[in-house]
């Protein structure tokens, strides 16, 4: 499993695209927002947590179809499926690799981009923390979506259609936590709910993803 993890990470870093693409997308979204809503810093600082969350979510979405597509095309997914590793394990490792190459960098640059959006000072810690808590859930849910659409020729758009509704609870609690943190309110409730969603999806969704992948490899 560790070998698979390092292989996936190495592939994502070297094959171009995957690694930097999500980050640059995130940067561009954040840069474009002030053009869209105007440069008033009061307005920007009010919507900053939401924009950062939305940008991170979309950047995450962008790289989802790469989770299985390449392995599906060159047949290594079939090899993996016949290996002694349980399918649930493969799926979990894939999700973890996706998070390490996409989610984690997003979490790390989010505070930097927060400066661009005039995020209030109190918000930085909570924004980073909420993203760190929430992005694993995004990766796991996305892996499920990617497993659903892996056999399809033009699965990209369908993937977004399937995954975005599933992202709703995570986005609500994550953005709410970041917003409350930025405005200096109590963040306990959204924090706990967000953590609950992340733990729940990590615990349960790999089984669904594995089942779906088995159907697709049949």
């Amino acid at each position, binding site marked *: 499993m560790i070998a698979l993890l390092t292989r996936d990470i190495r592939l994502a870093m070297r094959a171009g695209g995957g690694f930097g693409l999500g980050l640059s997308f995130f940067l561009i979204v954040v840069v474009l927002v002030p053009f869209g809503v105007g440069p008033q810093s009061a307005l920007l600082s009010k919507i900053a947590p939401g924009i950062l969350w939305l940008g991170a979510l979309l950047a995450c979405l962008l790289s989802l179809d790469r989770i299985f597509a390449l392995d599906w095309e060159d047949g290594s997914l079939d090899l993996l499926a016949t290996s002694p590793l349980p399918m649930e394990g493969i799926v979990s490792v894939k999700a973890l690799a996706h998070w390490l190459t996409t989610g984690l960098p997003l979490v790390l640059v989010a505070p930097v981009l927060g400066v661009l959006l005039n995020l209030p000072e109190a918000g930085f810690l909570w924004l980073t923390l909420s993203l760190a808590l929430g992005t694993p859930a995004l990766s796991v849910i996305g892996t499920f979506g990617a497993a659903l659409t892996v056999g399809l020729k033009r699965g990209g758009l369908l993937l977004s259609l399937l995954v975005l*509704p599933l992202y709703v609870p995570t986005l609500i609690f994550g953005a709410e936590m970041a917003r409350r943190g930025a405005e200096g309110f109590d963040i306990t409730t959204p924090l706990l709910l967000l953590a609950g969603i992340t733990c729940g999806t990590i615990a349960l969704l790999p089984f669904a993803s594995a089942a779906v992948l088995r159907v697709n490899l049949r």
Partner: protein
Amino acid sequence: MSLNSLWEYANPKKFIQTTDRVLPWVAWSAALTLLVGLVWGFFFTPDDYRQGSTVKIIYLHVPAALMAINAWLMMLVTSLVWIVRRHHVSALAARAAAPVGMIMTVIALLTGAIWGQPMWGTWWAWDPRLTSFLILFLFYLGYIALWEAIENDDTAADLTSILCLVGSVFALLSRYAVNFWNQGLHQGASLSLDKEENVADVFWYPLLVAMAGFVLLFIALVLMRTRTEIRARRMRALLARERMGA
């Protein structure tokens, strides 16, 4: 002819035979109850003293919303039956119910907007109930799109069933998340069996009839669409066999 168990209806041939006899009854009683309920509701109930005649849209709004949720529930049950017992009719029934449920969701949203305009002064508000219906609509869209996208029937049935199960959990989660996210304009449930204070009886009885009409309409539509699906699949099989033979 006696039937020993419910599962015998999972045989497509038996399903077609039985629905041949049942469907006209269901369809006609749906038409009749809908007609009675809607005409009674629209023309023979008094105007509400505050809402005026706009209150009458309730006879479309509430039953449609009811069926929007129950259609998903039915898809959940039939998906489970497909996963556990692998009866094709069950998977096809789920497929047949999805567009009907989606249309019900659209009706509920549209009539709600039309009702909300004069009452709340706005077509749309990010109220928890409205928002969760919008999310439900997105779930229907994704489910139908997945059915359409996959060519192999069994694969499609398997994948959509699992999507339906996972989606149900997330739809519920979203429902509570949205509640947490924003307090709403929409009133609480005004219809329940165990509450003393429901809608006044003059509105309540025609509403009950209209709801029964929508339930019957839904059953009739799903049966009809399931039969179409079965026949379409049988036709494809026949065509394939012919091509093989020739």
